[in-house]
């Protein structure tokens, strides 16, 4: 039997105004198990807390009921008070007689009666409370960053600079991601390569960062602080530690007809290649799909020209197992496919291009060495039409595009328009838009400059159709402000394609038991207050895998994710929430039902030996809850048919005792 102390708070007149606190403390003092009951003006004040501490010692209290404001307000306060007086903090229960009683009831009698019932309910629960101790688990002081774009790079650098080891897994042969493909960046128009490549070098040279390029995450198990990850290092047929990156092989390779994905297929590369000059690691990779030697066994040119003897046609995929304390998803984005948008004639004309392709065309290291020409005939375009929101904000055409705003298109289109007008004043530029959204530092100013200083024509309206006619593109659109239909003869049409999460994100989320929204963006633990954490403990989110983002936003989120990781890795031990699920092995059937509803993958099964009747032993499959991973929702407790699964702090018996007390 517990020795319970009841403390009724007046909260000044907040409670005492409509609840007779004396009557409440008197009535509750008569409840079985209650050995002390009092009321006081401000229970949460120092004096109030001292009163509780003193009563705990004087009356040897084992359980505390505070009738006060919402537990969301002061539960933590009173738990600390109890702990300071030497009883387990989880022996405290709060009866919410302010928000859920005195504040909503005007009648004193009614309020007092209800407060007594709520107090009794808390007493009924405390009777069944047990001391709870949070579990502890060690932390592996190494982080894994999945994705080597600017998000992953920034997160990795920040973590490593704080003194922790970081591994980056990048599925491409080089890190750099989308930003490496960009020409200039808004709103300052500095060159992407100029600000990105030094960071890539920093990563390469950082003593605490390892890069697994051309690699993928194969398997993840474990939990916060203790993840076991298998990384697949795909065979690149070049010894990474031997290759000097001289590039001779990439010049001599006889297979010249491989579409160059770095330039979005607008030119070709060889079967052995280094994606771009500043690639990190600067190591060649053989594209097995195109390499004659790998396909037919006849060639071997690269091997012959390689003075470092780095070519190894027998290389196999390699699997690396490593432990991590934290995992950061930084898997980025891709423009959506234009397949479903044939009204813009993307498949019919080479001169209808996406914005990312436009970036490459403008880039000095691009397929045209930075000269803006039409991909079809190499002729300088005099009339360019930009179409925004291609596949974005597409609520009515959800099967084609995305319902959300891709967020970056307004600004990069303004950038493209401005750069074009700056470099080629003879080129006329028209932009079709639904809205121009420029909420960022210096963003609107940037857009105004495009319109006002550079004379870009902005037309509010959507393009309905683009049709190639001769060497021209006929753009049919509507001008909603002038309320008229337009027909523009253009040389080049640039589509601002919506962006979507990278395809690798969904399977990765499954491996991480991290949740995703319907668009396959990772879900954050809280949209406002925990924007860089996944609901799954130990999984963090960086960059566009969480939602569309521009570079400044990505970098700041990457830093935020790093800060969260550093906060985690700087701990030697993790203390969990003790209100977690617990399986009674004697009753567990091992049926796997609970595991299926657990959003955190906290439940595993084990074949365990039990004592059977009459000195026999039985092997039974039983569920085990990983307390470090369990967040305490209790979903498993209801899924479990045998009632073996229960939730500490919110045990079935406790809840039923509350029900009983309320219905008395």
């Amino acid at each position: 039997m517990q020795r319970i102390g009841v403390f009724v708070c007046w909260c000044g007149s907040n409670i005492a105004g409509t609840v007779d606190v004396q009557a409440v403390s008197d009535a509750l003092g008569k409840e079985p198990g209650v050995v002390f009951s009092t009321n006081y003006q401000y229970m949460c004040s120092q004096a109030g807390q001292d009163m509780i501490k003193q009563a705990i010692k004087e009356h040897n209290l084992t359980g505390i009921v505070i009738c006060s404001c919402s537990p969301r307000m002061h539960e933590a306060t009173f738990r600390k008070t109890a702990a300071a007086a030497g009883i387990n903090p989880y022996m405290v229960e709060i009866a919410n007689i302010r928000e859920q009683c005195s504040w909503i009831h005007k009648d004193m009698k009614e309020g007092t009666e209800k407060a007594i019932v709520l107090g009794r309910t808390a007493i009924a629960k405390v009777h069944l409370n047990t001391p709870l101790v949070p579990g502890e688990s060690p932390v592996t002081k190494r982080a894994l960053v999945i994705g080597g774009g600017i998000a992953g790079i920034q997160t990795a650098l920040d973590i490593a600079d704080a003194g922790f080891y970081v591994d980056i897994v990048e599925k491409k042969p080089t890190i750099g991601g989308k930003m490496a493909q960009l020409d200039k960046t808004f709103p300052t128009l500095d060159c992407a390569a100029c600000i990105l490549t030094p960071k890539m070098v920093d990563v390469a040279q950082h003593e605490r960062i390892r890069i697994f390029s051309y690699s993928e995450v194969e398997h993840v198990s474990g939990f916060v602080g203790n993840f076991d990850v298998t990384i697949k290092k795909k065979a690149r047929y070049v010894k990474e530690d031997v290759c000097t990156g001289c590039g001779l092989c990439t010049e001599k390779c006889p297979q010249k007809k491989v579409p160059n994905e770095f330039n979005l297929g607008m030119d070709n590369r060889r079967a052995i290649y280094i994606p771009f000059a500043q690639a990190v690691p600067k190591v060649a990779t053989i594209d097995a799909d195109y390499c004659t030697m790998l396909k037919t066994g006849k060639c071997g040119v690269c091997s012959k020209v390689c003075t470092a003897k780095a070519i190894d046609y027998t290389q196999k995929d390699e699997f690396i197992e490593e432990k991590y304390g934290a995992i950061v998803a930084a898997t980025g984005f891709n423009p959506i496919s234009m397949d479903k948008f044939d009204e813009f004639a993307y498949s019919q004309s080479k001169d209808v291009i996406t914005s990312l392709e436009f970036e490459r065309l403008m880039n000095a290291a691009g397929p045209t060495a930075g000269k803006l020409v039409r991909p079809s005939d190499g002729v300088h375009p005099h009339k360019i039409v930009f179409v925004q929101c291609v596949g974005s904000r597409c609520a009515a055409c959800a099967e084609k595009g995305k319902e959300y705003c891709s967020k970056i298109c307004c600004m990069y289109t303004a950038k493209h328009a401005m750069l074009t007008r700056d470099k080629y004043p003879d080129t006329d530029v028209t932009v079709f838009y639904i809205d121009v959204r420029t909420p960022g530092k210096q963003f609107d100013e940037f857009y105004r400059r495009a319109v006002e200083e550079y004379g870009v024509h902005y037309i509010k309206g959507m393009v309905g159709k683009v049709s190639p006619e001769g060497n021209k593109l006929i753009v049919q659109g509507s001008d909603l402000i002038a309320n008229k239909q337009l027909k523009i003869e253009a040389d080049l049409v640039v589509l601002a394609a919506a962006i979507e999460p990278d395809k690798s994100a969904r399977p990765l989320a499954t491996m991480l038991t991290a949740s995703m929204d319907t668009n396959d963006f990772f879900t954050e633990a809280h949209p406002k207050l925990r924007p860089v954490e996944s609901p799954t403990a130990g999984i963090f989110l960086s960059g566009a895998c969480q939602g569309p983002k521009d570079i400044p936003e990505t970098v700041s989120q990457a830093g935020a994710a790093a800060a969260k990781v550093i906060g985690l890795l700087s701990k030697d031990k993790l203390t969990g929430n003790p209100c977690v699920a617990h399986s009674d092995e004697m009753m567990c059937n091992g049926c796997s039902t609970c595991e299926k509803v657990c959003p955190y993958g906290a439940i595993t099964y084990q074949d365990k030996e039990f004592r059977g009747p009459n000195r026999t032993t039985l092997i039974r499959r039983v569920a085990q809850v990983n307390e470090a991973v369990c967040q305490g929702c209790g979903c498993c407790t209801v899924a479990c048919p045998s009632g073996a699964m229960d939730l500490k702090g919110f045990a079935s018996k406790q809840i039923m005792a509350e029900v009983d007390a309320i219905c008395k």
Partner: protein
Amino acid sequence: MQKITREALIEKAAALLSEGKVDRVLGWKSGEFSYDVTPAIFNNVEEMQKDFVYGDFSGANFSKYLVKETKKDGKVLIFLKPCDTYSFNQLLTEHRFDREKVYAVGIPCDGMIDENKIKQAVGDGILSIVSESETVKVETLYDGVKELNRADVFSERCLNCKSKKHVAYDELIGEDGLVLDSNRFDEVAKLEKMTADERFAFWQNELSRCIRCNACRDICPACTCEKCVFDNPNSGVENKAAANSFEEKMFHIIRAFHVAGRCTDCGECSRVCPQHIPLHLLNRKFIKDINTFYGDYQAGAEVGSRAPLVNYTKEDIEPSEAVNRGDE
């Protein structure tokens, strides 16, 4: 459909036993009368030849016995009728027995007979029941031989057979059947059409007869808990007898809820109820609702499938709509 004979099954068992593929056989053992068939373990062909029986009263679903049987050494031969195979798969899905220790032989089934229907038709003193293809000849103490239509004395579950297809087996005797379009939800629909008062009266009458013998639970292949909540003093619902109509309802609601989405509709609960309460109408209500709300789902149709109550879609029906659906 070819009629499967006792001899064919014994022959199959004999072969498997002699090849060493199985160590014992889980089968039906004849009793005192024509209908009181008991599940039993046969260790050799001689035992089978003496007592093994397969016929109109071999209705017992053996799947649940595998939980116990596979904890023993050696391999057991089990004969599975189509409906039994669903329970078999469901138990496998829930990791309740060791598949390696079972050799499952699928056998066709053309329906089992409910001895209670015979008793109702012919009265007391049944001396023998002989089954022909379309008829059943019953000899009684008082009225000589009476002939009944087989179709009139089929078990309820066989009248509404959902499938003649085996969804699990190592070996099949005879040809496999098909999943059938049954009218098994008709009775549920009939109840749904009643007023709330009529439904309440109906169930009050049915459930008031419950003696809480737990036969429905203990025969149920989905009820394989190490300890049932109704036997566990810590569960808050434990009791040994219903003290009033609330406790009667609670037992049956929770029993049905705990197997919802896992119940294969094998019909054993109603078959064994000594008070003849149509318990399957509770389970079928859940199955019908699941099918309507979340799309057709047959528990046990495949191993490892995700049961509807451990699954969801973002567009699921709201509880308020679910209860109003019957109003139309």
